[in-house]
């Protein structure tokens, strides 16, 4: 495109965007219909109160740190590396052992098992062996008779290090002279996509837009700090620590400690948030080891905020070199994307994050020619791993911004550009998987309609303020995907007191898992919700239901519960049939009564039927396992007919006011639209949408872990800035329910998409307000100011990662 054309079209584009209430030109698309529709009568679809809510508002529910004050015999604390990268020459514990109250000091030599952790690669020593790779690596454990003794003991442990050069950034790591942080070097290859011929398509494109994005390191910052207790009674090691996958924590802990699995039990206390931050092990092995060494004693442990931030894995900071090619009419023809991700010191769930990033590189866009390369680069920063969004979040920032830039280049209304390029029913996503039901455009239209229908008058602006609005559209594949085994199991039974018990392995950390399972079970078995108890995430009492992550619990565990409840219902109706001398098909259960479906005279109480069932020797228990298959990709092309079991779509819209002198951003209006298939509990779904959007606002505007030379500069809440009441506007939620034929009652899920959609919506709005598109997160006041004053802050060059296609712009 010639410069003058660009200029004119940019002005037109800005004029089009400047209108605050654009006219809607297209009707809302109709929700698609599916042949399978199960209509709920009972608690499914209702905003029931949280089944664990009462103890939360009373303050009586027990989180990890609440477990031990009356019970703990000993306290443990970890000595952590003060060096980002060093050889561990020795640990002297004599001085520590002389500290009053100190009972023992342990190092890697004392670890009975493999001393290895890591969800995917077992590359992370629990206690450092010879090398420390980040300033959070555990070096020793001190056990004391009080927290103060343990702490004083830690301060007295003497650690001898030989400092090694610090690999502080990805660019450092890629330098030839960089030390190798792992045996195979500093680069971890990820999934690649080769679809069509992106090189040729870019050459032939009318318009090419290229940009480099940099996202930041983010902390989960859940409020419930890591804490818990453990005890070894000579036969069983019982550990009570919050995680996200009790059964996997059990396996990993047993491995690290050298115990048979059946000798380790994980019990999950009330859990205050996770967001991916409890997916790696935290305290489990430290506590377990101390417990093994002191049989019969209850060991307790608790992190401070600083330790929590220094020790735990973080969200990957990702650099994305993104190039899009399109025709003059806006049809996108090609995408070439090179992604470098700061892996930190250890792999954690990084390999899976890189895969998910690659799989979502073009999001809900229809792009026939796509080349994607994703690399993980090890550094001496915190290991990076799971956090809500899991790689798809960072990619959404990029592809949404690219749409804004392309629209600007073409002088098109961004909404029209989206409409032209969003996938529709039957189209392929990045991995080549065809999505049968696509509601991306429906979500976008619903969000726009909600925004435009709001007749509130915006307050007038001061001279130094600018207003803008931005749109994001996203998609997200739920579950582990890529052929990894992914299963949930559940049991639903009637206890001897007539109450129904649902038992699943998933962790409730505030998202509403307990209600989702209880409401489905109550619906299926015709009992009131008040009659249902939920047992969860206790390896002694529950079967494995996979992790509470990947937005999978509703789909996977919801289905497992549905299957189990169906089994139980069949068994109950079987007994009822015998009791009433009719075929079970003629009966139904409603409100804890057996009723006739065709003959109103048929009636019995559920309690009578249960008693009859026990008399006849029935177990009155149903078991469900839900294990759908996804298909691993072709490694050369990254293509798979089914990378993910199902996809979620969403669209957000943000309106911001920017102080263009200070760079401060305030969000004025916000609309979030998600297609959840079916809202099992609408209040919980809205809660996830608002909560996830708020975390996205935090990532967009203010949250950032600052590392300098391998040292975290802000391991506290004074300088790790979280959104407060004042930072979040009223978020209007639009919930679309287009049945997923495979989900329980048609439900898909909700957990991650709201965060994924929020960050790009806010960035797009800032771009609209200030007339320059953001490229680096967070957009704190200084970064916005730098967007407006590019002469004040030169963008760093990254020759080590910049591919040839990064320069293509025409």
């Amino acid at each position, binding site marked *: 495109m010639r410069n003058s054309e660009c200029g004119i079209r940019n002005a037109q584009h800005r004029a089009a965007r400047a209108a605050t209430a654009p006219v809607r030109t297209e009707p809302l698309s109709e929700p698609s219909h599916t042949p399978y529709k199960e209509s709920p009568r009972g608690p499914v679809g209702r905003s029931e109160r949280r089944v664990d809510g009462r103890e939360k508002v009373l303050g009586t529910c027990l989180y990890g740190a609440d477990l031990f004050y009356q019970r703990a015999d000993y306290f443990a604390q970890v000595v952590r590396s003060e060096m980002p990268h060093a050889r561990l020459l020795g640990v002297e514990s004599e001085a520590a052992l002389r500290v009053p109250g100190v009972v023992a000091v342990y190092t890697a030599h004392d670890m009975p098992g493999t001393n290895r952790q890591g969800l995917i690669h077992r590359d992370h020593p629990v206690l450092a062996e010879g090398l420390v790779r980040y300033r959070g690596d555990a070096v020793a454990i001190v056990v004391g008779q009080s927290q*103060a003794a343990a702490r004083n003991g830690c301060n007295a442990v003497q650690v001898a290090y030989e400092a090694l050069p610090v690999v502080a950034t990805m660019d450092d790591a890629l330098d030839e002279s960089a030390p190798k942080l792992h045996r195979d070097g500093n680069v971890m290859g990820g999934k690649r996509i080769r679809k069509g011929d992106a090189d040729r398509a870019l050459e032939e494109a009318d318009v090419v837009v290229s940009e480099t994005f940099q996202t930041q390191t983010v902390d989960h910052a859940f409020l419930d700090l890591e804490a818990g207790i453990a005890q070894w009674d000579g036969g069983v090691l019982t550990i009570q620590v919050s995680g996200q996958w009790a059964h996997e924590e059990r396996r990993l802990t047993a491995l690290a400690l050298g115990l048979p699995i059946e000798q380790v039990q994980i019990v999950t206390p009330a859990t205050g948030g996770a967001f991916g931050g409890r997916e790696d092990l935290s305290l489990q092995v430290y506590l377990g080891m101390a417990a093994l060494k002191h049989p019969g004693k209850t060991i307790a442990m608790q992190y401070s905020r600083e330790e929590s931030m220094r020790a735990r894995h973080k969200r990957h900071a990702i650099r994305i070199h993104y190039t899009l090619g399109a025709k003059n009419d806006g049809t996108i023809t090609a995408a070439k994307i090179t992604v470098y991700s700061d892996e930190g010191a250890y792999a954690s769930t990084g390999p899976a994050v890189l895969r998910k990033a690659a799989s979502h590189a073009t999001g809900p866009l229809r792009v026939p020619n796509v080349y994607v390369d994703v690399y993980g680069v090890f550094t001496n920063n915190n290991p990076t791993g799971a956090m809500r969004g899991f790689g798809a979040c960072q990619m959404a920032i990029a592809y949404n911004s690219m749409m804004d830039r392309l629209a600007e280049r073409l002088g098109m209304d961004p909404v029209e550009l989206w409409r032209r390029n969003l996938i529709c029913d039957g189209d392929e996503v990045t991995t080549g998987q065809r999505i049968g039901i696509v509601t991306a455009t429906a979500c976008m239209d619903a969000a726009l309609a909600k925004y435009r229908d709001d007749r509130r008058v915006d307050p007038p602006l001061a001279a*130094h303020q600018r207003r803008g609005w931005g749109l994001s559209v996203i998609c997200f594949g739920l579950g582990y995907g890529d052929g990894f085994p992914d299963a949930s199991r559940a049991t639903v039974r009637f206890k001897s007191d007539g109450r129904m018990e649902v038992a699943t392995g998933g962790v409730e950390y505030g998202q509403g898992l307990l209600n989702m399972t209880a409401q489905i079970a109550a619906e299926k078995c015709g009992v009131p919700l008040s009659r249902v108890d939920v047992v969860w995430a206790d390896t002694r009492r529950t079967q494995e239901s996979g992790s509470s992550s990947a937005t999978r619990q509703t789909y996977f565990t919801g289905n497992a519960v549905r299957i189990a409840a169906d089994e139980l219902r069949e068994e109950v109706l079987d007994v009822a049939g015998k009791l009433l001398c009719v075929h079970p098909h003629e009966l139904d259960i409603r409100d804890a009564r057996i009723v006739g479906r065709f003959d109103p005279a048929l009636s019995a109480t559920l309690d009578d039927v249960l008693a009859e069932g026990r008399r006849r020797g029935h177990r009155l228990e149903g078991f469900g396992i839900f294990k759908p298959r996804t298909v691993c990709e072709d490694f050369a092309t990254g293509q798979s007919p089914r990378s993910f079991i199902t996809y979620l779509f969403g669209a957000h819209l943000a309106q911001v006011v920017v102080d263009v002198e200070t760079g401060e951003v305030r969000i004025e209006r916000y609309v979030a639209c998600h297609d959840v298939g079916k809202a099992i509990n609408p209040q919980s779904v809205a809660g996830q949408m608002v909560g996830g959007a708020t975390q996205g606002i935090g990532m967009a*505007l*203010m949250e950032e872990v*600052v590392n300098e030379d391998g040292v975290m500069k802000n391991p506290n809440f004074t*300088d790790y800035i979280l959104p407060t009441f004042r*930072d979040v506007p009223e978020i209007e939620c639009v919930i679309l329910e287009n049945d997923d034929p495979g989900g329980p009652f048609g439900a898909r899920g909700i957990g991650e998409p709201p965060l994924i959609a929020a960050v790009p919506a806010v960035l797009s709005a800032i771009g609209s307000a200030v007339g320059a598109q953001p490229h680096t997160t967070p957009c704190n006041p200084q970064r916005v100011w730098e967007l407006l004053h590019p002469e004040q802050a030169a963008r760093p060059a990254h020759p080590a990662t910049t591919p040839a296609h990064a320069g293509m712009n025409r």
Partner: protein
Amino acid sequence: MFFQPKTIDEALAVRAKMGADATPLGGGTDIVVALNRVGSGAKNYLDLTHVVGYPDVQRENGEWVLSAGATFTRLGKLPVRALAEASMTVGGAAIRNCGTIAGNLGTASPAGDGCVALMAMDARIALRHATRGERIIPIAEYFTGFRKTALLADELITQVRFDADWRTAWYKVGKRGSINISLVCCAVGLSPRGDVRIAFGCVAPIVMRARKAEAIVEKHGLSPVAIDEAAEVAMTEVAPIDDHRASAAYRRAMCGVLTRRLLNQLQKETGGRASAPAA
């Protein structure tokens, strides 16, 4: 040992005797943060929160007289704009209920919001000793270095006083809507006598004034030209650093922005007369 005097004289007696060996404790919002981080506290504390009159605020003889324990909640209600607005940007309600003006002055952080507002009103700090009595230090002489003040180890801050007729304005640049550690904060004060004070936080080792910028406005009044020049000059007087919160370039630019913005705001409100009386 934990001292909990009930009168100011008792408090001064302890202070004179123990000096730096007993940490004065007001709201605790700085001291206990440090304690929580380290895990253990000082050997001795001098708790001032039970001293009669500790949190009082009074207006007498055209002056506001803040007792040492005046909390940010209380100050947030004063009809003194810069001090009230600065106070309301300190933490949340719970912090403001405990945090005191003397604590702000005692910690002497260059980011101390209350200190910046006081600097724009030529506040006078009363330091008292059990037997030597009271001495008044003008706030411009109170901060002597990074987190260092003129307070001697055997003295206590008893009062902060400033004239009630200052017209002031305040702005704090932060990364979010609440509980901000300032990136940069600025307070501007105009007195009926024609004094102009432009005070900054976070752009030097101490809370500071841009004296050359002040002189320009004192000389030429609140004209657009003088305001612009003052903003440019203010940027040359500050000494911000690059740190993990913000860059020096950004902070410096914000000093110019805030000087211009607050002077313009006052100009509009006073009709251009720097010496207009306070509302």
